[in-house]
């Protein structure tokens, strides 16, 4: 690691040129979209919207043309996704496929797997969830117990995943499971693309404290998979998973989750802020500008084929602190108490994001795990 990894990286003009088009599309597509649903940001699920985006070529756009993508640069994708998030567009349906599963299938998948999944991902029609955590394996991911055993040319999976966002609405789950008997920790793990309509799979949504159902528990009971469900190399699951992490941790979704609340806050404050309001809104803006530059810097490192896992962890941890502070400030800058039902937009968005905020430093790696990774990167043991 090196602090000097954070070089300033300008979005190239050809990628920047997309922005106007995306904004125009969103102005039309979200014309009547309620403010409270914009607060859902990348947790908002809308299949029709995902298909419309797919039709515009904005899902899986970094994938090759022959699989339905547009060979777009990571910066072009960045422009599209940050505009979607800033507008609070419902992108959750295709989000994980676009960010993680698609690139992973391209990278590790067979030709048949690519043909089966990538074109449908790019059309905004095929949705994925990520099966990592288990009831006794949260931060300690390497302790997972879900197992796949070989039977002839089949795999049979038994176990349980939990906190699986969108499992109840996805077509496939890419799951990390143990394939070697009695293997220790990071060894003997493999990844499978599991068709969630198969017999033996039970999915139960878990209500979060806002009352929404984003995540699930997934039970796998003697689920029979074809040999072609394995993705990548048997036993290489851990390194495949960690290769995704820089993509998972550095994107704009790691600091734009609460932007809807900044918007309603500015509306509530009005055009002439008092001294405290001006100071705190400006401070949020300054941090947002800097986080975005850090995230773009990681994007350019990823584009250059580097592995900026350390820098990505910095973005995610700073981003989560930032996102979590927005409701804290919003509730003290204007005299508008949060309302779970009724009330003005600001009050409702405040209520929703105040209750969502604890998850920002849990999902995608907890604060403690990230700080541990950062410290090890600095040479502390």
């Amino acid at each position, binding site marked *: 690691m090196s602090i000097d990894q954070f070089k300033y990286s300008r979005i190239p003009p050809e990628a920047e040129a997309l922005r106007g088009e995306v904004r125009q599309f969103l102005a039309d597509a979200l014309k009547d979209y309620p403010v409270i649903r914009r607060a859902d940001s990348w947790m908002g699920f809308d299949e029709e919207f995902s298909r419309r985006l797919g039709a515009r070529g904005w899902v899986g756009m970094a994938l090759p043309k022959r699989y339905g993508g547009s060979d777009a640069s990571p910066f072009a994708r960045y422009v599209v996704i940050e505009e979607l998030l800033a507008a609070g567009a419902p992108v959750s349906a295709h989000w994980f496929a676009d960010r993680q599963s698609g690139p992973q299938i391209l990278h590790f998948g067979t030709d048949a797997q690519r043909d089966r999944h990538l074109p449908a991902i790019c059309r905004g029609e095929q949705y994925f969830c990520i099966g990592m955590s288990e009831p006794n394996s949260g931060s300690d991911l390497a302790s997972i117990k879900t197992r796949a055993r070989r039977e002839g040319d089949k795999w049979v999976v038994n176990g349980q995943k939990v906190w699986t966002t969108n499992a109840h609405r996805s077509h496939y789950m890419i799951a990390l499971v143990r394939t070697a008997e009695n293997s220790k920790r990071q060894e003997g793990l493999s990844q499978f693309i599991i068709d969630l309509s198969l017999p033996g799979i039970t999915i139960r949504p878990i209500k979060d404290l806002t009352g929404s159902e984003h995540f699930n528990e997934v039970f796998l009971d003697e689920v029979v998979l074809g040999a072609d469900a394995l993705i990548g190399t048997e036993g290489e699951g851990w390194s495949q998973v960690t290769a995704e992490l820089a993509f998972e941790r550095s994107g704009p979704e790691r600091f734009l989750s609460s932007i809807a609340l900044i918007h309603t806050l500015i509306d509530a404050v009005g055009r002439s802020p008092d001294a405290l309001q001006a100071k705190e809104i400006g401070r949020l803006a300054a941090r947002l500008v*800097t986080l975005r530059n850090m995230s773009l810097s990681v994007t350019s490192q990823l584009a250059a084929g580097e592995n900026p896992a350390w820098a990505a962890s910095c973005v995610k*941890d*700073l981003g989560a602190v930032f996102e979590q502070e927005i409701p804290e400030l919003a509730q003290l800058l204007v005299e508008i108490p949060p309302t779970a039902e009724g009330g003005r937009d600001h009050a409702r968005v405040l209520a929703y994001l105040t209750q969502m905020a604890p998850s920002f430093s849990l999902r995608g790696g907890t604060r403690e795990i990230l700080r541990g990774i950062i410290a090890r990167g600095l040479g502390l*043991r």
Partner: protein
Amino acid sequence: MREIFDSTVERLFVDLVSTDKVLTAETLGWNAELWAALEESGFGLAAVPEEQGGAGATWAELGGVVRLCGRFGLPLPLPETLLANWLLGVCGQEIQAGPLSFAAGGQLTLADGKVSGLAADVPWGRDVPVLMGITAGDAPTLVLLPVEAAATRTLCSNTAAEPRDTFCFEAVQPLLSAPLPTGIPADVLLLGGAMLRSAQIAGALQRILEMTITYANERVQFGKPIGSFQAIQHQIAVLSEHTAASVMGAEAAFAQSAVSLSRLAVASAKVCASEAAGIGASAAHAVHGAIGFTHEHALHLTTRRLWSWRSEFGTLTHWSSELGRALCQGGAALFWPTLVAGHLETPAGASV
């Protein structure tokens, strides 16, 4: 150019700006020998166009140089000289030999060709022959003033014993006066000063991060290096995150500044750097324990600078309030587009 500048200056500082030199400057003051060596390097004129006698370097190429000044705690106004000469170039004026400084605080007025008023908090003011100011009023004018012509002087030092002096002028004939070109805001010296300090803070944070990692790996308590304790690791992780944020902020500010400095990028950089300075210094001292609180350990050379630099050329409150007012004025719909465009209008009434 960037890599050449960075490596040249780093080598120069490794040779010339030792911890002892920084410490000595705090008690003995101006180090003429060191300044002569710097002047020979030509970096004071780097940002001036070639046809005016400079190196024609862009701010993007000079961000690393200013950051290194902060990292080494250079006890001389090289950043200030760089900025002042750049502004002379922008105004089409001849560059000045020797160290230069400027006043971003106080208030100067120009009447009948003579300058009166206060030039406040001038870095190294007592040590430079000439200081730059911008007069207030409808036609802001760049002036160079002979420091010896001041009617009164108030000598102050910041927490790192760096001179921050205030001068009162009474109808003094400026050495030079030139109207600010269109597009150059009246508070350009404050803005430029904030840009310099944001990079110096970033460099200083890099220094204390290195020192803190080294110390945590060497200091043994309870039978193991303290850096193996999670509580220590997490404090250092936070220090590194804020160091990274301040480096990124400064890099963006320099990269987006050319003939006009990027107000949004500079303000963002100074806000993040000022915040990072406090958090970073606090974490570094926590890890260093009692020895870091003594003159025997070099940590204070950097943390005492951080505690002053964060307040100079506009505090976190100054710049965040300016950003906040402008963004509220634009309304929620323009919030995101403004940040992405990276362009903020100069507020009406911005003045020295």
